[in-house]
């Protein structure tokens, strides 16, 4: 599963996040101020095994697909169209991706790997660690199949749900596939209207997990 490859253990992640906070607080503001005045496109530093690059996001990424979309206006994505969500535009305020060197001899480069059409913000949690994908510390019930989403009675904001509880179903050619809560918590958002088409892994119901109660 991608999850095993893309994210390290929790401890590791915590440490990484600490480093990032530090990065954000101590360095970025001043450096950004400096460089902005220079009208510089990119700044890069290498030291030993490491290498830091500061640049405009517009020069980053490799999404051929989205570019193609920009060029041919009529691009569509099943999951998105169905729920009438806006097409993904720019990266969220903060995105952190950590590539585990275990995936390939020389470490994965997820941030360089292209992103599928309209996937930037609705990929399954497995694909990305840290905040940005879902409500902070949030959990998301995803679609178990490609079909039509039918929310259940528990799929209402504010409802308290238990891990494994049925939140609705995705109807695949008449066969209902249960959508279940990934953890104990409170329903914070219904991400897809009932009766809409959804794809496999699409985020359906947001849940604010009750502390220390993740499903095992």
């Amino acid at each position, binding site marked *: 599963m991608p999850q095993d490859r893309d994210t390290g253990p929790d401890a590791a992640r915590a440490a990484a996040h600490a480093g990032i906070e530090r990065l954000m607080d101590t360095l970025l503001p001043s450096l950004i101020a400096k460089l902005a005045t220079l009208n510089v496109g990119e700044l890069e530093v290498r030291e030993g095994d490491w290498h830091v690059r500061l640049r405009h996001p517009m020069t980053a990424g490799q*999404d051929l*697909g989205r570019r193609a979309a920009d060029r041919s206006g009529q691009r569509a994505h*099943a999951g998105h169209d169905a729920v009438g969500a806006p097409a993904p535009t720019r990266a969220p305020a903060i995105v952190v991706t950590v590539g585990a060197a275990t995936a390939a001899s020389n470490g*994965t480069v997820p941030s360089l*790997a*292209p992103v599928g059409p309209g996937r930037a913000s609705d990929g399954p949690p497995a694909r990305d660690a840290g905040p940005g994908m879902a409500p902070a510390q949030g959990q998301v019930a995803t679609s178990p199949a*490609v079909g039509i989403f039918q929310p259940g009675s528990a799929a209402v904001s504010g409802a308290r749900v238990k891990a494994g509880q049925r939140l609705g179903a995705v109807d695949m050619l008449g066969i209902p596939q249960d959508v279940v809560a990934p953890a104990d918590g409170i329903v914070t958002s219904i991400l897809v209207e009932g009766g809409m088409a959804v*794809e*496999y892994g699409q985020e359906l119901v947001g849940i604010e997990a009750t502390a220390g109660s993740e499903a095992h």
Partner: protein
Amino acid sequence: MFSKILIANRGEIALRILRACRTLGIEAVVAYSEADRDSLAVQLADEAICIGPSDARRSYLSVPAIISAAVVTGCDAIHPGYGFLSEDETFAEVVRAHDLTFIGPPPEVLDRFASKEGTRRLLGGYGLPTIPGSVGMVRDDEHALVEAERIGYPVLIKPSAGGGGKGMRMVRTPRELESSLRVCRSEAKSAFGDDSLYLEKWLDDTRHVEVQVAVDRYGHGVQFGERDCSVQRRHQKILEEGPTTALSPAARAELCERAIHAVVAAGYENVGTLEFLVDAEGKAYFIEINCRIQVEHAVTEMLTGVDLVAMQIRIAAGEPLGMTQADVQSRGHAIEFRINAEDPAHDFRPGAGIVERYHAPGGPGIRMDSHLFPGYEVPPFYDSLLGKLVAWGPDRATAIERGRAALDELVVDGIITNVEIHKALLSSETFLEGRMTTNLLDRVGSAAFLAAAART
């Protein structure tokens, strides 16, 4: 004509089908598994939909997932590509039951040609020579031994379903036969869900020659010449070319004529390939028909200038062929090199990983069909085909020169490929003289073959 097609496949063939749709002005939806979320076909598609996890049984082999995806995206047809569900008549049935069109032969045609043994009898009846073999499936070991005696050893055990060498064994004695039957059954069972086997006379030093045909709904058929797929490793094709060097122009013409006559008479529909074994005397035996577009279809496209995938779609939509045999003009010589993520130095162990650098060769007569791009991560879940490098030339010598130059130009870093085996082939006397048989590599072993080439 269709308005929107669901592409239920991956890799280079998903891209190939997408291009055919674009050329025909048909919308296309790429159905993909989680492992292919970043694939080139998904990126280039106007629309894409995730149908399941990386496990093919829950995505590319899941009939309900694929049909549900076609329904919710508003498609009116499904292209299965090759492999996966491409020749599954049950799938084709269910597709039709949902008022969708299966792009390939209609279910009843798939059904008629589903059994290799039955197909040999059917087309044999329409004048195609076949290899002496068991009468029907072998009921049990008893029956197998009796049939083997009648045919005469060595005999080849073959599964009725599937293809690609899985579940096949050549046996020289009754003991070998008994011990192998069990293995072949389980292999066939796990690979195709069908463990029925049959026996066939083993032919030594044979060539593999196949004829590309297309028949429309109205019984009008055309053949596009033959391909020589003799270069194989354990029954897996790795290089295909056309025309074949195994037969004289006259013999080639006759074989292709008989092939198209037989399939039209037998009521085949859509594009297909008739596979033959050709023995040392140049005698051809029909062995099976492939009711799908094949990996090596590009060889025929380079020779004849037709778009076989577009033709496949048009026929499925009920359009007439719109061409006669006289319109088919083959020109020059074409060779396809399958570029696989396999390590020739380690018994072709399949590999995966990230493509750090990728440069596709080009120039006159060169065509590269591949889903690679810099940064692409090759998932470990599916077959090892990374792309197909096709070299065309006005004659075989030129095609070989261009192929050699193109293989040298190709850059795929981060993934171990089988390119070395192709370079070795292009320095092999046997291949250069066009005398290769299907055991070219297996007789000496690929490692020894590579070593020999390194010495030259």
